């Protein structure tokens, strides 16, 4: 997986951490900044990724256009809303795709390297959370602009539209950040559960598949029948890309929007609590198997 190349050795600057005796929120900020800058180094890989995602987005739109030609009355969004949804999905793939997890963390848990991490006077959960968020943010920001800019100049059914008004744009940014936090919190649960299974592939797949389906990455949630959509929207996964991508084009507005933001906040809180609890449990039980 392409994000695993962004390697940074924590041991390189562990000495500096040790001299600082008390846990301090600035540490997490520093981790965040470092990961972010490391991620920005991989520009060539990003360019190849952009081309690929562009092709995927194009094919995806073609599928929906074919269904639209067949039965326009059954289409639950406007074509403009759909194109914007699909381009944003491709542009911010790194923000929301649950399968983009950090292989290094899995290796570190399975290989015993986690012992070093535990030596640090920093909360493991907070550190990894900051790290994952930064990886996703840098990968996403690096890739999004070329896709968004080209998509904005495509001919009509494919074109990506600007948000209707500044308020929508702001709400989009807000829900985007919240969605990113939910995604990271979900992935953190997988990392924590890995302490109990050692070999993480299965868990990772199960979580990614559920996340992909429920967040509207297979088909956007409005395409599901109403009652099923209503249930799906309650899931933590729907708080990921489903909310910001629909807010952007005005598909999600008013009362429904407020409810979606409240759900996002609730899930961030609940998932972080669960993750921290699992973290505490895992560390109490963890056995480092050599290394």
């Amino acid at each position, binding site marked *: 997986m*392409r994000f695993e190349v962004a390697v940074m050795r924590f041991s390189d600057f562990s000495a500096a951490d040790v001299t600082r005796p008390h846990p301090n929120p600035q540490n997490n900020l520093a981790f965040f900044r470092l990961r972010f800058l490391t991620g920005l180094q991989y520009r060539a*890989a990003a360019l190849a990724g952009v081309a690929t995602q562009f*092709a995927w987005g194009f094919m995806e739109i073609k599928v929906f256009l074919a269904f639209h030609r067949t*039965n326009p009355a059954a289409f639950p969004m406007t074509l403009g809303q759909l194109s914007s949804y699909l381009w944003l999905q491709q542009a911010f793939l790194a923000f929301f795709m649950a399968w983009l997890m950090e292989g290094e963390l899995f290796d570190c848990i399975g290989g015993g390297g986690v012992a070093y991490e535990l030596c640090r006077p920093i909360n493991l959960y907070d550190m990894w959370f900051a790290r994952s968020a930064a990886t996703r943010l840098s990968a996403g920001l690096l890739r999004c602009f070329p896709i968004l800019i080209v998509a904005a100049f495509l001919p009509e059914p494919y074109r990506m539209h600007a948000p209707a008004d500044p308020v929508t744009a702001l709400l989009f940014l807000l829900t985007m950040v919240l969605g990113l936090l939910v995604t990271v919190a979900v992935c953190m649960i997988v990392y924590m559960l890995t302490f109990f299974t050692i*070999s993480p592939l*299965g868990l990772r797949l199960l979580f*990614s598949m559920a996340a992909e389906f429920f967040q509207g990455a297979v088909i956007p949630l409005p395409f599901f029948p109403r009652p099923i959509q209503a249930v799906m929207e309650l899931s933590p996964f729907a708080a990921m890309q489903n909310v910001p991508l629909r807010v952007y084009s005005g598909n999600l507005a008013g009362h429904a929007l407020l409810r979606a933001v409240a759900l996002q906040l609730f899930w961030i809180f609940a998932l972080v609590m669960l993750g921290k609890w699992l973290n505490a449990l895992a560390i109490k039980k963890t056995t480092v198997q050599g290394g």
Partner: protein
Amino acid sequence: MNSKNDMNTPSRHKVSALRLYGHYLSIHLRSVMQYKASFLMTAFGQFLVSFNMFLGIYFMFDRFGSVEGFSYSEVLLCFSVMLTEYSLGECIARGFDTFDGMVRRGEFDRVLTRPRHEILQVLGHKIELSRFGKLAQAIVMFAYGVTHSGVTWNAGRMLTVFLMLLGGTALFCGIFLIYAVLCFYTLEGLEFMNILTDGAREYGKYPISIYGKRMMQFCTFIIPYALVQYYPLLYLIGRSDNFLYGLLPLLALLFLIPCYLLWKVGVRHYRSTGS
């Protein structure tokens, strides 16, 4: 050099090539069985990968009824055949898919020093058994697709399905092989090749005609997906009576020839990374 002698007697060599592959398989099997729970979860996860795709199709047809004149059951047949082809190709040729790592780590040097064909060794190098979860799912889908397709089966159509599977699997193996060849030059897996493998599986679930004329031309003449998907499908569902359409997947087999030649060129130009 006993093994050299083995190679000189062609019949014995053939048997032992298969046996060698079997041996590779058993090594991989024993190794995944060390983590049984995780293996089963992974296989189950792989099972779900394409289940998501099925649900996507199901709900799209639930809403729209048909697409460009193709019904749900026809698309389901198309999807399940394509999925089975892809899964078979992936099970066989997974070694090519992870070939970039092999080149980077210099492991291909070791392959070249052994008295066996490189392709056999690369294939045996990585057999991801959890992918059989995907294959199992594809076979379930295939059985479902075939029984719900409403096709009146006769010998010709059965032969066509078989040829589709054969041609499609070969096609995907060929693309994986090209991917591996590119690794000789780039040392990195090339992300855009995803479009030809994963992308073809993902978007090949619908008949290629829905993507427009340009895409049809590309998929007929450049990379012959349409020869194993669209044309034989027309014959299967009775949209065309031309039996030649049913035989077209055989033409797709020819795709393997340029792939193999490219591989030969790649091996000749291989330079070890020295690590």
